[in-house]
């Protein structure tokens, strides 16, 4: 095992241990509350990235799955009279429902590319939001309330935290496996040049739909969890267009199409969002700040933190190696080597 791999494994193990110990160390419910929302977005961003990041098809409609998961969990809890931790058993079903919705959605939307695809996802999103407003079973504008939960108040947040943590870790693992697989390679071939990939024998439609369906499952699951934790879903919060864009921002911020990028993005952006929201409560100034942050991220770091940092580290290593090999080598040559590597 190389030193790099060992370091990476150690870092992952440390991160997992930190995640496990988090609610035991920080017992303040206000802190674990923010942690739960952050983990929900880690799962969502990582799942979104397995489709949009790998395939290059930008979906602004994943809130469809989030809202559907939330509404499904809400309706099933109400109609089947579930209470307490029984509700958590609905989450796999919510995930399944997300996948089932994604299949016809994908079959239809993935016939078109680029801008048209983005707009179709937005249109489908609005159909779902409108449906939630208009149906009787979804409670219309007032939405669905969760029943009161009788967990002990000191550890009330813990079940939610660990389930969100489990879904997030599972999603990232899944994203990593996909990226390493033939399936992931085919997805990235589609991103680079779909027509050429098809020419080389990639069954583009199947691959795209597969990724779309897979990416919907965790999003619907965290949607269900979010409903139970927040205790209320209404059409504008369950189907919130801002969430779609926030997730895209997280992935861009960390590095679109990388495994760690969306996780890093969610871990940075969601807590700062919550912090700003709680601190800068004065009016809507906070909104403008958020939009401005958004602009800065995209204009200054268009490729995201992880790819930019990886390139910097690569350049630095290159420079060190060539210095050791030949002290007389001109710096000009090393930067050219770095640049060639970047191009390759």
């Amino acid at each position, binding site marked *: 095992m190389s030193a790099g791999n060992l370091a990476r494994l150690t870092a992952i193990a440390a991160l997992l241990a930190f995640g496990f110990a988090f609610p035991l160390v920080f017992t303040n419910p206000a802190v674990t509350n923010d942690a739960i929302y952050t983990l929900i977005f880690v799962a969502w961003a990582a799942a979104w990235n397995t489709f949009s990041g790998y395939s290059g098809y930008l979906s602004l409609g994943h809130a469809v799955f989030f809202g559907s998961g939330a509404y499904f969990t809400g309706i099933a809890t109400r109609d089947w009279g579930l209470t307490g931790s029984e509700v958590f058993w609905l989450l796999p079903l919510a995930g399944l429902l997300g996948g089932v919705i994604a299949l016809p959605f994908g079959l*239809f939307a993935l016939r078109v590319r680029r*801008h048209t695809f983005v707009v*179709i996802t937005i249109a489908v999103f609005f159909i779902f939001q409108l449906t939630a407003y208009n149906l009787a079973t979804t409670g219309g504008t007032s939405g669905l309330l969760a029943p009161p939960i009788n967990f002990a108040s000191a550890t009330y947040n813990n079940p939610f935290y660990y389930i969100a943590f489990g879904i997030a870790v599972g999603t990232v693992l899944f994203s990593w496996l996909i990226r390493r697989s033939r399936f992931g390679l085919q997805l990235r071939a589609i991103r680079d040049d779909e027509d050429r990939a098809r020419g080389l024998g990639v069954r583009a439609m199947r691959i795209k739909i597969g990724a779309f369906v897979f990416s919907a499952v965790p999003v619907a699951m965290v949607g269900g969890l979010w409903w139970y934790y927040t205790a209320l879903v209404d059409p504008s919060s369950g189907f919130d267009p801002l969430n779609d864009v926030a997730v895209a921002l997280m992935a861009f911020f960390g590095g679109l199409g990388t495994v760690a990028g969306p996780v890093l993005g969610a871990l940075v952006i969601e807590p700062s969002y919550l912090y700003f929201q709680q601190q800068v409560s004065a009016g809507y100034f906070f909104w*403008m700040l958020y*939009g401005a942050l958004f602009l800065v991220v995209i204009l200054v770091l268009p490729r995201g933190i992880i790819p930019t940092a990886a390139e910097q580290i690569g350049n630095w290593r290159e420079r060190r190696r060539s210095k050791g090999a030949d002290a007389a080598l001109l710096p000009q040559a090393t930067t050219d080597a770095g640049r060639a590597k970047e191009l390759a």
Partner: protein
Amino acid sequence: MAQFLQAVVDGVLGGAVYALMAAGLTLIFGVMDIINIAQGILVVLAAYLSYALSVHLHIDPLLGLLITVPAMFVLGVAIEWAFMRRLRGRERVAMSLLVSYAVAVIIEGALYQAFGSTPVGYLPSYAIKSVHIFGFYLPYIYLIGFGLAAAALAAIYLMLYRTKFGRSVRATMQDKVAARLVGINVDRVAALTFGIGVAVTAAGGMVFGATNTFNPDSGYDLISRLLSIVILGGLGSIAGALVAALFMVTAEEIVNIWQPTWATAVYYAVLVIVLLVRPTGLLGKREARAQ
């Protein structure tokens, strides 16, 4: 039947205003290959400008267009210059959507800050009075909106097909690299096109504000309608946007007669059905599909 005809007339008159707003959106797309998600909130911003002029300065909204149109034009040029021009690379399409969304969020925040979330509206005398012809009641504002939209669309058409600048715009739409090679200043064309595409929201916003109450949240509803229209018409096709807007708004008015709660869904349903049959939209070019 009378109700039905009234719905058709309302749809055609109202559709013209949507056609104008959508024409701006599709023009920007054609030249720059980006979708301006902020178009919806820009319409709302223009409506607030008309509102502020009429309520605080007592300037008639129609007369106020002399101020709001240039103001929106300058804002459009500024947005293009500050943000859109700087996008490069493979993810340009995605980034342009996110950047224009961020611009929309900033404008929305600013509007909330300035005007609050309570819905407002203004009612110039011509928004209340209506004229009775051929058995239809037509509010003057609808006629004014239709006239404004028709005039602006005609002006855009003449600009595109009868002027040298229009020729350079069309050349840029066809092939950016070739346009640059024959000496067209593509950056300038892009900035001016973005300005024109945003300036039409001033007229659209004035009519929108006079016919609806609105708050900063109204931008979402507008942009989802406008996006449906431009995709249905075929991205980059102004004629397509015109046809799609008239069709969509008329269909919405007709459904509205017996199903008011689901009327908005017509937009998306029509869009879904048409795209299943024709993925490029009604008048879209084949290239719109290529990656």
